[in-house]
């Protein structure tokens, strides 16, 4: 399997062996305690950008409080290199529109099921930061040419130097 065809593996999931059983879940909308989630089969892409199947996603509505309660039980604080207190806070934080989770779905991944009570939420990894970064990178990849390696090296090196004050 090429890296592009292997499962998407952001830093929080580097050490996990199996990823195919996870669903990619995004909180897309919230109105009056109902949250709209986009649920997709786990994307491919290796350590690059996630690549999704053409027909693999659907939208479901869930009860916010049920989702919050379930996440409090099932959310695994996998964010790398964080102090325990920060990881604990991330684990219990309030769900927001734009959040992204890798969720082990208990049962079949079918749009016809009743998703509202969130009993389908199994082990959950919070990927909000990594998915957001991937989306931002995807936007730049789509709209600008690839950055020359020499230019990138220079930007990184110069950023480490203190900026001279204006004369």
């Amino acid at each position, binding site marked *: 399997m090429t890296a592009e065809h292997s499962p998407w593996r952001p830093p929080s999931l580097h050490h996990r062996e199996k990823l195919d059983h996870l669903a990619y879940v995004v909180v897309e909308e919230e109105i009056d305690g109902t949250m709209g989630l986009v649920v997709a089969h786990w994307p491919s892409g290796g350590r690059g950008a996630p690549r999704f199947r053409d027909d693999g996603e659907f939208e479901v509505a869930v009860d916010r409080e049920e989702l919050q309660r379930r996440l409090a039980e099932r959310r695994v604080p996998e964010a790398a290199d964080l102090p325990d207190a920060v990881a604990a806070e991330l684990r219990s934080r309030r769900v927001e529109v734009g959040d992204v989770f890798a969720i082990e779905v208990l049962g079949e991944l079918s749009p016809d099921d009743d998703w509202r009570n969130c009993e389908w939420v199994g082990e959950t990894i919070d990927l909000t930061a990594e998915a957001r970064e991937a989306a931002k990178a*995807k936007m730049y990849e*789509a709209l600008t040419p690839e950055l020359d390696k020499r230019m990138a090296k220079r930007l990184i090196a110069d950023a480490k130097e203190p900026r001279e004050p204006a004369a």
Partner: protein
Amino acid sequence: MTAPPRTQDVPAARLKAGDFLGSIDPEDLVHFVVNVGDGDTQLLLLPQEDGGRKAIVVDVVSGDKLEALIAVLQQAGVLSTEAGALAIVVATHPHADHISGMAKFLANHEALIDEMWEPGYYLATPTYFKMMDALAGLEKVAHSQPASGTIRFVDQVKITVLAPAVSLKNRYDSYGIDVNNSSIALRVDFPAQRYVRRDDTGGLEKVPKGASLILGADAQTLSWAHVIEDFPTLVASDSAVAKALRKARGVEPLRADVFKVPHHCSKHGLNLELVEEVSPGLSLISSVREGGSYNFPHLVSLEALREGIDATAQKGTAHQPDFDLGIHFTSGRDDAGADLGTIAVVLGPTGKSRVVWRFGDSPTDDVDLTKAREFG
């Protein structure tokens, strides 16, 4: 508790079969709000220019349905088949109910598309990643992330971006704003030209203002508050000096003949002040029959829309039926139970002539122009 009576429906007697394509004059603009169920897909067929018409696409949920409509319009000779026929394709904001068909549509229509606009809000949804992948593959399509105040002329049509305000765009990356408030809301005016050259003297003569539409996308009240601030209604000065200098003539930048109601008429997408500013002749709502996950359209917003069009609060009297207030829903039915489906408004250049057509399609049917019924 019994459900409130549905107001989306129209008596069959008010709908008359007719020749939709034959009814369109060369100088008319046609606004399609395609019935895609729970989502938005719009097509603006621009007035004829040099014998052909271009179009603007605003959001694509069901690419197949829109592609079929475009093909029918091209076969009928009312939409150009040349490069640039789709002058602008707008992805108003990256919610699936607005862009789920965009990736495929962009890939299939590159040869026809001049420009693609999206708000620059990156949302980590599968549809967003797919749309940006498709955009990366387009070699000849110009791309923009416009903000409030951007103006683009396409032949005799002026497109003004009302939202997002620059100050909202600048919050994408730090404080964060609701993705709905990244929506590109548009004002469309035609004819764009305000002067005509006189045959007798060769001098320029100012012509009266033409027709206008406001396409609200999913902008919420925060965004509309910025719009009202950025596009204020200015009262004309009637002083002799002001008139002599031709200044302070007064503008009503939010007044529009046709209003695509924001966010499926949700309670966060509309308020009375906005409706009063727009004062729409027609209000079009993309909606799903049973309300979808969020029970759109919300009654409280429908009431604001009705009151803004037909103020009765002080008198305490009931409003006229929605269809007589110019409010139309993609999810409406006639009283025989038939879907009303996709809405097309044939809008004349003065805005006074605005004819509503319905095509009887369900969200999964193609638009069949031969099934057109004119509302009257």
